[in-house]
């Protein structure tokens, strides 16, 4: 009886803030004092125990799972290390640990620019507010290591006064503007996806816009399909790197999550990222948004079943079926691209000319871009399976077109054998094949962790101790 009495009272609940802070408060724990339920669930992103067929919140070494990637990215930092992402809680930790960011010895050292911090936590809007956006994008990654220490959290998505959803990253706003759209007109439901679109999007660094800055830019001016973005990059003659084997001016696709989701049936029906990845949850009659952002397959009851009355197993099977249908051909495309790179190298070795190779390299560039567009977004095979299937087909056509031209070049140079497929059955073999000195890279990273990180943490602690939080 008591519980019934209590529970009737539950629904009436007055919100009394426990602490007072402003928009630039980067510490999730502080916001969390006012919103314990959201904070506690947010903190669950620390969990790494769930694995689905292809994803989940465990960290998965993708180069080990699929060593072909090493060859596809030869000459680019992704061939050193690339993992299937885990929870937001790890954002800062993982960008520090990854071999891609190297082992800088001081704030002017290392392979990566400061812009790499942009999507890693709420210190970013704080810092942008302090020093300006362009200034934020300047300098080396190591130069701002002491600034960005809190992982993705409240300040990235919320207004501190109203707790309304908020866009805190300029790149998204600018991309909307260039498309002639006003992000301020977004509806509440659209905001439930747009906060994610601040980060889960394809991007590149524009080095021309502001002198000395790697300006974060979303290549959406012509649209967000694989073709539209490809055209954008072709028009500005952009490439992320030159492939070490085939000498192709390559494009790297990074997690075009929002773009692909937008082309799926769920987006068509107005379902937002948050509906599946942050479903509502009730605890003691109090409804709130589950901030444990993760694979919905670890929470089918509260996500899918709100809209679908099928059994959990069936819904999971639906997801796996789509992923299987895509990934079978995605893997095939990878193999064809590996062959294309290796064969292109052979053609160069035989003495093929720039002119002869140009169309081949264009096909490789486009074929791999489309593969990456489909592969880099880990949710894509479910978010928009029919579109991803389409893109992969076009990628296969291009990869094979490149190989056909290569076969003709071989004939011209009197080479009439199949080029052997390299032995890349493990990550180690593949990295050796492209000539990476992993011991050196690991050593540098270890030194960096021992020497630089403690300094960053100390500086950050000092800074944060000066922040005002009224109780």
């Amino acid at each position, binding site marked *: 009886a008591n519980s*019934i009495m209590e529970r009737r009272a539950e629904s009436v609940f007055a919100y009394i803030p426990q602490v007072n802070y402003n928009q630039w408060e980067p510490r999730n724990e502080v916001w969390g004092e006012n919103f314990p339920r959201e904070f506690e669930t947010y903190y669950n992103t620390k969990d790494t125990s769930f694995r689905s067929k292809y994803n989940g919140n465990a960290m998965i070494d993708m180069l080990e799972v699929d060593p072909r990637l090493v060859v596809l990215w030869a000459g680019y930092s992704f061939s050193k290390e690339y993992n299937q992402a885990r929870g937001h809680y790890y954002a800062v930790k993982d960008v520090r640990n990854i071999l891609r960011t190297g082992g800088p010895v001081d704030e002017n050292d290392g392979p990566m620019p400061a812009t790499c911090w942009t999507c890693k936590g709420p210190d970013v809007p704080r810092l942008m507010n302090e020093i300006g956006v362009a200034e934020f994008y300047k300098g080396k990654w190591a130069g701002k290591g002491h600034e960005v220490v809190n992982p993705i959290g409240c300040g990235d998505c919320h207004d501190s006064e109203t707790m309304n959803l908020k866009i805190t990253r300029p790149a998204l706003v600018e991309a909307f503007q260039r498309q002639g759209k006003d992000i301020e007109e977004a509806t509440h439901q659209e905001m439930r996806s747009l906060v994610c679109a601040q980060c889960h999007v394809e991007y590149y660094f524009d080095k021309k816009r502001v002198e000395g800055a790697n300006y974060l830019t979303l290549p959406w001016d012509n649209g967000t399909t694989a073709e539209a973005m490809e055209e954008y990059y072709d028009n500005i003659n952009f490439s992320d790197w030159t492939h070490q084997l085939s000498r192709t001016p390559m494009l790297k696709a990074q997690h075009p999550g929002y773009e692909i989701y937008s082309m799926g049936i769920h987006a068509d029906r107005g379902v937002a990222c948050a509906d599946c990845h942050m479903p509502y*949850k*009730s605890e003691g009659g109090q*409804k709130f948004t589950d901030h444990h952002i993760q694979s919905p397959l670890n929470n089918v009851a509260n996500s899918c079943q709100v809209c679908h009355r099928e059994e959990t197993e069936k819904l999971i099977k639906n997801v796996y079926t789509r992923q299987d249908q895509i990934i079978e051909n995605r893997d095939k495309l990878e193999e064809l691209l590996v062959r294309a790179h290796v064969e292109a190298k052979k053609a160069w070795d035989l003495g093929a000319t720039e002119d002869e190779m140009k169309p081949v390299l264009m096909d490789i560039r486009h074929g791999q871009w489309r593969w990456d567009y489909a592969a880099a977004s880990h949710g894509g095979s479910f978010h928009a399976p029919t579109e991803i299937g389409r893109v992969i087909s076009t990628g296969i056509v291009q990869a094979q077109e490149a190989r056909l031209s290569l076969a003709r070049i071989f004939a011209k140079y009197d080479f009439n054998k199949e080029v052997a497929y390299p032995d890349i059955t493990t990550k180690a073999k593949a990295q050796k094949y492209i000539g990476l000195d992993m011991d050196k890279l690991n050593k540098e990273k270890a030194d960096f962790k021992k020497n630089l990180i403690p300094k960053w943490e100390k500086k950050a602690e000092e800074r944060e101790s000066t922040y005002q939080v009224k109780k």
Partner: protein
Amino acid sequence: MVKLFKLLSPPPKWRFPVMIVLGAFVGLAIHVLYLSKALSYLSDEPKTCVNCHVMAPQYATYQHSSHREVATCNDCHVPHNNVVNKYLFKAKDGLRHASIFALRMEPEVIFILDEGSEVVHNNCIRCHSQTLTDPKLATQVPQHTQNTQDRACWECHREVPHGRVNSLSSVPNARVPVPSSPIPDWMKEYLNETDTK
């Protein structure tokens, strides 16, 4: 029978404490029934289902459906083949709901049980048999009734009447009647006073 009663009745010196304990139980039970508005559960008034806020989404969606004017919750969710069945089912269902509710065991997304499904389905048919059965066909096609009625109606009519979004949080701001009167207390008092005069 008498023997049985004797066997069950406590020894004399325990009688008084037992009476007190039993009394307390009865009192408590009445209190529970009162608090949970259990009696209202016997009526057909849709508002009574919303005594539990967990029923709010269903109430709100129903309130906005074509069935609002023509059917109550119980028209669909309770058997109407005979009176005994109606109240038996109600009691069983009600007790289950109340226990789960009190134990805070309700899931975020409630699913209708097979038994309840069957009941609702038969109620759809009860009201719509005119549309479903063609008397001409019924005489000629022995399976006619079975063929038109062997799937849950809402396999096709997926939106009737609760829509397709089902979760305790699906209608956060709905004006679900928290049992109250539209007239403010001060006015009631005033009216009462003027009444007695």
